């Protein structure tokens, strides 16, 4: 996969002024920008195009932003999503992240914060993609499991094929890159989510539980995803002590 010269961003916002403002600023930052005014339009556009980031309004006519994100994830489309919304309460934030969003910004927002978040999401994805670009880093094998980071798919020791979510894949990637070393929860949060998206490191614990359920023969006494009490986690691959 070659890296495109221009990074493509899709802006899905039904308010013409806000949409125009966001697009102009993204263009000024050097991104290539496309626009959609409704959830249906966004899904239509994404059927024929690829982009590096979707800036997605939550309250849209027709299918709302959450619905769009859920539909994309169900189709196996893992393009990162930055939600924009007028409702900034915690319940909404959590919902946005549950349906597979990467970040969440409440309206009205600061331009510089918006641009910073866009950059942060793209940087994380850039790292993930470049780290999964070559054949020997794209596939991880451990304990009879085989994970292909390029397509978010894994074949487990039991022979089952499993679709990973992007976050699961990213966490696994970070852990595998530091195989045998201790990785703190804060490091995982920083590398996978960025700064302040999630309020607690408990989230990381939940993701580790999910990874154990997928890949450990006995999730109750893990051999690959080890807890280091009070610090974080240690990943042990094939043949390591």
């Amino acid at each position, binding site marked *: 996969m070659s890296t495109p010269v221009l990074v493509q961003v899709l802006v899905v916002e*039904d*308010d*013409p*002024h*806000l*949409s*125009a*403002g*966001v697009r*102009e*600023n993204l263009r*000024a930052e050097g991104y290539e920008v496309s*626009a*959609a*005014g*409704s959830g*249906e*339009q966004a899904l239509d556009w994404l059927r024929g195009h690829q982009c590096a980031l979707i800036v997605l309004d939550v*309250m*849209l*006519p*027709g299918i709302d932003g959450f619905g769009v994100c859920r539909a994309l994830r169900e189709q196996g489309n893992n393009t990162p999503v930055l939600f*924009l919304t*007028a*409702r900034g309460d915690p319940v909404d934030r959590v919902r946005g992240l549950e349906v597979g969003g990467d970040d969440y910004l409440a*309206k*009205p*927002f*600061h*331009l*510089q914060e918006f641009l910073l978040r866009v950059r942060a999401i793209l940087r994380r994805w850039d790292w993930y993609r470049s780290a999964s670009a070559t054949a020997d880093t794209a596939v991880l094998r451990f304990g009879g499991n085989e994970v292909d980071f390029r397509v978010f798919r894994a074949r487990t020791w039991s022979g089952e094929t499993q679709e990973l979510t992007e976050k699961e894949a990213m966490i696994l990637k970070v852990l595998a890159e530091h195989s045998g070393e201790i990785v703190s929860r804060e490091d995982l949060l920083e590398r996978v989510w960025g700064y302040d998206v999630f309020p607690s490191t408990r989230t990381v614990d939940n993701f580790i539980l999910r990874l154990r359920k997928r890949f450990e023969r006995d999730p109750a006494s893990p051999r690959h995803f080890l807890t280091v009490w009070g610090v974080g986690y240690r990943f042990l691959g094939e043949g390591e002590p």
Partner: protein
Amino acid sequence: MKATRVFQLTALALMVVSAVQVAWWLIDQRAYTIEKVDAVHSVYAEQAAAAQALLDSGTSAQRVQELLPQITVSGGKAGLAPAAEQALRSEEHRRINQYAWEGAFFLLALGVCITVIARALSAEARVLEEQDNFLALVSHQFKTPLASLQLSLETLSLRSPPPAQARTLIDRMLADLARMSAMVTQILESVRLERGRVELKAEALELHSAVARVVSQLEDRAREGRVAISNTIEPKLYVMCDALALDVVVRNVLENALSAVAAAGGGDVAISARAAAGEVELAVKDSGVGFDPAAQARLFEKFTRLGSGGSAATGNYYGTGLGLYIVRRLMQLAHGRVSAHSEGAGKGASFLLTWPAAREPQP
């Protein structure tokens, strides 16, 4: 608000407890009465047995009856006097009836109170929920233009764009401000309409000139959106309506039509009217973006904005989602009707407004 709710809930609980108490008291009193009557019965039976013993021991029947007035002796056999039996039974009935009536009355009274309070509580809960929804929607409606305003200002400050681009940003900000200010007006109007704080003075109004006045005020906007407006209402059609309400209604419907046509890239709006069966019907037909017929029911509800999707390029209109709601409320208050029809998205729309007809006022 909270204190009254606690009070209402306490009263409701007390009444339910009272109702249970009354029901229990009723059952208990009935059982007690029956028990007492049975006890008197057994006393009478003992007396009859004693009387029989006296008779058997040779006491005269007359003497026995003197001693035991409830007992009658006939043919050498002592038994309970029919009158005493009768008195006992009627006392039993009287008591049970009295409890039944009194209890039923109390239960009924309590039932009515419980229903009244429960209804008040659920009505209040509904109002609170509506207020919450209203607030959520209002804040959403405001946050979008606010976000746009902030974005434009920060773009100006961060990028110092060339004059032409700065001009675009300033125009955008002015439009956002106008939109928020229109929203404040409409929200206040809709709240006043809801609270019934609007007094309409019905008078005979000439429809053609009322519509023409609004059309002339919208000419600039029509030109901007490449909309041709035709007004073919015949003179001397009079409707019974409040003058200001008529103006607001016509303005909202026409603004709605203008936006729909502008969003479609231009077209026309045709205004006509006819008199029928004591009513006057005004039709506003546009060649605009139309709407999904399935959405028709929601059209006149608060905060319904049927987005036309990607009309961003033409859009200089920002609906508050209150315009058509205000129209419907004002039409109801004017004893009129409003309805909307569209064949579907992209196929235009027509709005029909009907008022009671009025006679030409005598000079």
